[in-house]
């Protein structure tokens, strides 16, 4: 399967609240909360690091889950957020960093 690169949309608001990340889309006001694992993927979504590498380095190692399960979970999470325009997904590195106002 082709590699995936993910980056955060500029049209979102986000803040950590007690270990969970609140994310709200400015496009359709959809409100999400991300648990610790999802927050880690979110924070690593820099458009340059392949999703598989994020899964290996941030998820498997830090949360002690097996590679296949973590990748499946990450794929589902990325699909859902991208449907709401909250994450941008591409098969190529995403170079437009006007979209990443910080790593809060």
């Amino acid at each position, binding site marked *: 399967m082709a590699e995936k690169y993910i980056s955060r949309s500029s*049209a979102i608001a986000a803040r950590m609240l007690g270990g969970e990340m609140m994310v*709200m889309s400015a496009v359709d006001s959809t*409100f999400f909360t991300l648990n610790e694992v999802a927050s880690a993927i979110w924070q690593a979504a820099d458009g340059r690091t392949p999703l598989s590498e994020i899964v290996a380095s941030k998820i498997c190692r830090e949360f002690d889950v097996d590679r296949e399960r973590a990748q499946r979970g990450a794929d589902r999470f990325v699909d859902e957020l991208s449907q709401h325009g909250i994450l941008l997904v591409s098969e190529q590195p995403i170079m437009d960093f006007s979209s990443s106002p910080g790593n809060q």
Partner: protein
Amino acid sequence: MSLLAEMNQKALDLGLPISVHFDITYRCNERCVHCYLDHDDHGEMTTAEIVDVLEQLADAGVFFLSLSGGEVLMRRDFFEIVERARQLLFNVKVKTNGVMIREKEAARLRQLGVEQIQISVYSHRPEVHDAITKLPGSLKRTVQAIRFLKSQGLKVTIANVLMAGNFSDNTGVMALAKDLGVLYTLDPTITPKMDGDTSIIALRIPGSDLKQVFHNQELVGNVEEFCAPPPAPGEDVMDGVPCSAGHTACYISPYGDVFPCVQFPLPSGNVRRQKFLDIWRHSPELNEVRSIRARDLPTCSTCAHVGTCTRCPGLAYMEGNMRGPSTADCEKSFQRTGIPSANMLKRTRAASAGPLIQIQSLPNSVQNHNVALNVALEENFLTV
């Protein structure tokens, strides 16, 4: 419980300020008859000071940021402020009269990812709206602004404040909102001026009009449910906190003053002299506000309405006692249910106790910003 409500509860449990209302100027291009502000500039914070406050708010965990005034666009650095706020990933809501928003400004707001814009409209008729704002041509410009914002795909809410002078145009404004494809919210209570001047309270709608608002299905949904007599309050009600002011929310003025809420002008610190988090955590005033539970309210704790009343502690404070009743909310509870409040009964008893005590006439109507009736003409927060 919705996800958003869950997050609010979590912020309350953790004592975090999830929402801040930040007025960046009190200057304005309109002179609304009912406005609670003094529009002179008494030394607004500079761009650098505001940016510093925004950074502190982000660090403190603030997520919802309302930028308002005065008229926000009177500040030349308005877009710079919004840009920094968005870089800091706040959910930004802007409150404006819209007069200075043209295509370019609407596009910029969209580009910056502002989540919603609230615009005041008092009537669908220019002669009524413009007489309130005292700016000729303002309705036309405001409606144009709404169109520009909508065409950018922005979420817009029309906010209507009901007064004796525009009450009958309420349905007209609602129809206008529908026509423009925007949300509509109305506020039936005129609050005193921030400096304590109560003269504008005379603009309030009479109780009979308030009753009509509360019994309007289009505004409140299920009238029977909305106007039902209050259930007997349980222990949870008596242990409850009145509203978010000082608990998960606060207000910052253009001069850096921190209050529990825009409607609760209790000076609690100043960000020009103190760090925001120090004020939030250690201000004796905020801690006093936080300590108050329904059971501590001398009159309200004995009132049948205590569990369902929209009692605003800020309005109570402006009447002289933050633990007291807010007569505007007493009137609302009464007009909604037909059941007199403990405060009304106390006054009646006092009045009949002897000729030395005068019956104080109650202000005709009441409201509070926290409970503005929301009429969703579009989807509200979609939660996942």
